[in-house]
C-alpha cells in the first residue's frame, strides 16, 4: 500500500464529507430550529438541480449564477410549503414527517410530469470538468468547488446564527418558544424564515449534485436517509452535523479503500446504529426537556 493512495483516499474522504454535509445542512437548520423532520428534503435538492437546469437550458444563465438562483427559487418553494402546510403541524413531529413525505411524492411526480423522467444534464465550464495535481495527489476541480461552497455556507450560517439579531431570535425560539414570544420575538416568522433558509440550502446542494452526477426526478431520494443520519448523529446542532459528516465521509472513503463501496455503506449504517445505542442524543445534544 502506497502512502500516496492513502493520502488520495483521505482527500477523497474530505470531499465525500463535504457532499454529505451540504446535503445535510438544510436539514440540520430546519430540524435544529423547528424540530421538523423534513422528508421532502431530497425533493428540494432535486428541485434545486431542476431550477439550475431550467435556468441554464431555457434562459441561458451561466452555471455559476444558477447556484444562487437555485437557492432563491427553492427557498421560495420552502416558504410556500411552510406557510401552506408545515406551520399547522409544529406540535405534531411525526405528522410533519409524514406530511413532508407526501410533499416529496407530489414534488417528484410533478417534476416528472413537467420535465419527463429522462435524465437531464447541467453543462459546466470546461475547467470544472478537469483536475489538477498537487505533488502525487490528483484533485478534481469540481470537488474543490463543492468543498468551497460548503465551507462558505457553513461560515455564512455561523455568522447568521451567532452574529446577527436574527440568529439570536432563532436560538431564543429553539430554547423556549413561549419565553421567546414573551420577549416579543415572532416565533412563527422565525420558523418560516428558517424553513425557507433550509430549503434554499437544499437548492444549492441540488445545483451542485446535478453536475457531479445526473439530474433526475428521483435524484434526491438517496440523500435523505443519509443526510438525516448526519443530523441525528450530530444531535441536531450545526457543529454536530459537521463532525458527523466529516467522520462518516472519511470512514466511507477508508472502508471503500480497504474493502468495497457496498460494504463500506453497510458498515457506516451499522456504526451509526451502534453509536446511537450509546449516545442516543447524538454528539451535541440539547439537555432533555424537564417536566
Amino acid at each position, binding site marked *: 500500500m502506497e502512502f500516496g493512495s492513502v493520502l488520495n483516499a483521505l482527500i477523497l474522504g474530505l470531499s465525500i464529507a463535504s457532499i454529505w454535509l451540504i446535503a445535510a445542512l438544510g436539514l440540520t437548520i430546519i430540524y435544529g430550529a423547528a424540530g421538523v423532520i423534513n422528508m421532502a428534503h431530497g425533493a428540494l435538492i432535486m428541485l434545486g438541480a431542476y431550477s439550475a437546469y431550467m435556468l441554464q437550458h431555457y434562459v441561458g444563465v451561466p452555471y455559476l449564477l444558477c447556484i444562487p438562483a437555485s437557492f432563491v427559487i427553492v427557498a421560495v418553494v420552502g416558504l410556500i410549503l411552510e406557510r401552506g402546510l408545515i406551520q399547522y403541524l409544529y406540535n405534531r413531529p411525526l405528522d410533519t414527517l409524514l406530511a413532508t413525505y407526501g410533499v416529496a411524492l407530489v414534488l417528484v411526480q410533478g417534476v416528472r410530469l413537467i420535465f419527463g*423522467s429522462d435524465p437531464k*444534464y447541467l453543462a459546466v465550464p470546461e475547467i470544472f*470538468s478537469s483536475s489538477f495535481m498537487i505533488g502525487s495527489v490528483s484533485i478534481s476541480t469540481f470537488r474543490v468547488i463543492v468543498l468551497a461552497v460548503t465551507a462558505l455556507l457553513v461560515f455564512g450560517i455561523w455568522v447568521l446564527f451567532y452574529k446577527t439579531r436574527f440568529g439570536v431570535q432563532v436560538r431564543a425560539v429553539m430554547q423556549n418558544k413561549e419565553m421567546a414570544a414573551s420577549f416579543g420575538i415572532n416565533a412563527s416568522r422565525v420558523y418560516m424564515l428558517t424553513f425557507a433558509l433550509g430549503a434554499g440550502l437544499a437548492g444549492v446542494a441540488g445545483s451542485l449534485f446535478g453536475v457531479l*452526477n445526473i439530474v433526475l426526478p428521483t435524484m434526491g431520494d438517496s440523500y435523505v436517509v443519509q443526510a438525516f443520519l448526519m443530523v441525528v448523529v450530530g444531535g441536531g446542532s450545526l457543529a454536530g452535523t459537521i463532525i458527523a459528516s466529516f467522520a462518516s465521509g472519511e470512514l466511507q472513503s477508508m472502508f471503500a479503500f480497504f474493502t468495497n463501496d*457496498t460494504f463500506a455503506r453497510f458498515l457506516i449504517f451499522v456504526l451509526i446504529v451502534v453509536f446511537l445505542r450509546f449516545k442516543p442524543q447524538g454528539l451535541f445534544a440539547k439537555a432533555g426537556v424537564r417536566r
Partner: protein
Amino acid sequence: MEFSRRKLLKTSLAASAAIGMPHLWIPGSSEAWGATLKKGEPLKVGVLFSLTGALAVPEEDSTLVLQYAFDEINKAGGVGGVPVEPIIVDAKSDFSVYSEKTKELMLREKVIALFACYTSASRKAILPTVMQRDHLLYYPTCYEGAECTQNAICTGPLANQHSKDLIPYMVENFGKKVFFVGSNYVWPKESNKNAKIWLEKAGGELLGEEYIPLGSSEFGPVLNKIRDAKPNFIFSTVVGASDIAFHKQFKQEGFKVDQMPIASLTTGEIETRAMGPEFGAGHFLSAPYFQSLDNPTNQKFVEGFLKSKYGKNGVTHYNMEETYLSAYVFKAGFEKAAAAVGFENVTPRAIRDHSAGVRIGDDISPEGEVWIDENNFNTWLKPKIGQCQGDGTFKVVKSADAQVAPDPFSIYPDLGVCTKDGLKAPDGKIRKSVI
C-alpha cells in the same frame, strides 16, 4: 420432485374441500393458457414496461418501438392474417406491479404473448407466473443467461456474445492491462466472468474488479483505485444513472479518454445524451446495433420511427432495436405455429416451440440477419463495436464476421446444456424451468 399438475389439482381440491368452499378452477397443462383463438379477432399481446418511475427511461422507448412495430406489421396485413392488438400496461418501475400486471394480462386479458421487462430483476419477478401458465415471454434485452425455461424467447445479446469481440479489440488497440468496474448485481458479474475468458484468450491482464452499489453516484473511491492500478483501458458494466455519474466523474477526476478509454456494454445513445456528449466521446460500446448503422433497412427504420408519432424521444438505440425485432420474431413464430397446428390451436407454448430457428432477414432487421437458436431460444447475432463521437452518435469500428451463437450456460459447463425441453445435465437428466 417434478411439478405435477395432476397432483396439484387433487391437493388443491382436497384443500378447498377441507375449508368447505366449493368454487375452484385449476387449469390442466393443456388449458393452462385458458383461451382459444378465433379467426377474425385481433391477436391480443401484452406490452408490460414501466412508463413511470426510475425504469421509465429505457422502458418507455421499448413500449413506443413495440407500438411502432405492431403498427407496421398491421399495415402489412397483420400476423397470420389478423391484426395485433397490443395491450399496454404501465409497470410503474415496481417489481410487484410487474408480477401483478403479468397475472392480469395472462389471466384476465388472455393475451397470447407478453413483451416485457428491461431489468433482470423484473424478469425474475414475472417468470414464475409465466412458467406456471406455460405462457410466453419475449424478453428483448441483453442479459446474463444461466436460465433455461421453456417459456421465453430473448432477442438481446447474452453475456457470452456481448464482449467476445470487444475485449480482444481493446487489448489489441490499447494494451493488455484492464480494470473491471460494474454495478453490484448479477448481470455485471456474469458479464465479467465471460469477459475474463476472452481476456485470457487475448493475453490480457486483469488488474482489479470493483462493484458499485446500484444507483450510487460516488465513484471517487473506485477511480482512486483505478488511478493506482494504471490500466490501459476500463471495462464497464455500470448501468443506469450510476453509469452517467461514472463517465462524468471519470473526466472530472482528470482521466483522459485517449489514454484509458472505457469499454462499456451499456453506454449507448441515451446514456450519452443524458451525460452530455463531451463526457461520452471517445469511449467504446459493444452492441449489436447502433443508430448510425449504414444499411438501407436501418435507414428505413430510423427515418420511419423518428417520423412516426412514437419517435418523440428522437433516438433509436440497441435496446429499442432488439425490442423491435422481438415483434417480428413473434410474427414469424406465430405464423409457423399456425401453419403447423392450425390457427385456432395456437397456444403460447406452440408459438415458442415453433420459433426454433426462426430467421429475421436483413430486409427487416436493422442490425442484419439474426435467428433464434433451436435449443435455447436466444438469438444468433453479430455484436459490433462502436466508438462514441463528439455529437453523441457511435461510429462502428469493428463488426463480427459471422453471427455468434448464444450460450446461456457457457461459463457453467458442469450444469449442462440448455435444450428445448430443459437443461440437460452432463449425466443426461433434463430439468425443466431452470431459473
